[in-house]
């Protein structure tokens, strides 16, 4: 795991965070922390602001009120770099590239743990034998698995998983839970969004309920 500048500080520390789009509040104000070895389950119905919250934490959206600290450092591009890995609705895969080439490109850009090979990661997520298949030929679930392989290779201690269970079959859901548990065992943390409690990693979990700030 990557070395940490502030081993005692929570991976992410959020105080009074709120976000409004066109003056309409989307969520907040929220206060929460994610410690090492801990997962935060973000629940809420459609439109409750789960994705927005994760995008704000990833630094993809500006115009927020409140304070976010990553590893004890006020969040900015430098504080986030290499500490956050984000799995969103858009996987960032190139349809014309093969599974392995996509993984190689994303890891080249985002960094990877040196201990694990690309093929090994593909095998872990159940894509062994698909190394040379172009991403366009993969099913939605297989693409999600490919993104999970990217997360698994990421050196970042904090995972932001937006609907990681979407499109996955039962073994896939089990895979996500296994990966989150292994990541937490190594001292990482995770924020996981989901609409319901039907799928949750069996780990030390805090729950954050987003109900939507609108009346």
């Amino acid at each position: 795991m990557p070395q940490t500048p502030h081993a005692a500080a929570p991976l992410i520390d959020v105080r009074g965070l709120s976000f409004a789009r066109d003056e309409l509040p989307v969520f907040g104000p929220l206060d929460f922390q994610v410690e090492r070895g801990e997962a935060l389950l973000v629940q809420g119905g459609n439109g409750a602001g789960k994705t927005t919250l994760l995008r704000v934490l990833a630094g993809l959206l500006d115009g927020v009120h409140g304070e976010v600290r990553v590893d004890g450092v006020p969040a900015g591009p430098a504080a986030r770099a290499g500490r956050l890995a984000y799995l969103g609705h858009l996987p960032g895969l190139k349809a014309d590239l093969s599974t392995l080439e996509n993984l190689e490109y994303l890891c080249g850009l985002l960094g990877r743990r040196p201990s694990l090979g690309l093929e090994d990661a593909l095998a872990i997520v159940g894509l062994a034998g698909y190394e040379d298949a172009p991403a366009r030929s993969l099913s939605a679930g297989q693409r999600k698995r490919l993104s999970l392989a990217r997360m698994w290779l990421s050196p970042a201690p904090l995972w932001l998983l937006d609907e990681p269970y979407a499109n996955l079959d039962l073994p896939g859901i089990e895979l996500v839970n296994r990966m989150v548990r292994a990541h937490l065992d190594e001292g990482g943390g995770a924020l996981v969004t989901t609409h319901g409690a039907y799928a949750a990693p069996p780990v030390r979990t805090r729950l954050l309920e987003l109900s939507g700030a609108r009346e």
Partner: protein
Amino acid sequence: MSEASTPTLASAARALVRRDLRLLWRRRGDALQPALFAILVVVLFALAMGSERELLARAAPGVLWVAVLLSGLLALDTLFRGDAEDGSLEQWRLAPVPLAWLVLVRTLMHWLTTAAPLLLAVPLLAELLYLPRPLWPVMLLALGLGTPLLSLLGAVVSALTVGMRRAGVLLALLALPLYVPVLVFGAGSVAQAAQGHDPAGGLLLLAAGLLLALVLAPVAAATAIRIASQ
């Protein structure tokens, strides 16, 4: 930690270059489109003007520049659109290297894959328009300095419109005013040389513009991407 773990500027650039070269090879037909478009414009122009050698030779620098500029405009929308639509840009923004650096690498790759084939076709186009041989080096030098400048200016405009579904005409409207000085100095330096004057002035201005754009355009484009993808 081994060097593979945290991407440096060089390793991130290498990953992006390798990706773009692979994509180019998978879709090699598309890569020739800008060059084909420029050839088409020049051939049609030559046909429309008839066989008046003198007239064609005099119009050649302007026609060549306009053909190159329009074909570049045609390819501009593909600069960031694909990466915006599949979520690549989001991952670029999370990468531990500056977004401006990735934008610069991507823009230079885009230039290499769309404008460079065109530069190779310039001798053919110049021959079609009876551009006098002694002017070819000036023409190539002006295009060699001008097309990367057009790509960098285009990157800023393309980044500004990346959040829109269909940017077509707006992209052209925003880009053309920025392209005009490049066109004026580029075609102007060749015209100067044709009249026996020293073309150095226009060429030096293009070179200065290119240096300035190399530094500023990626930063501006990166900021535009951040704003456009809110």
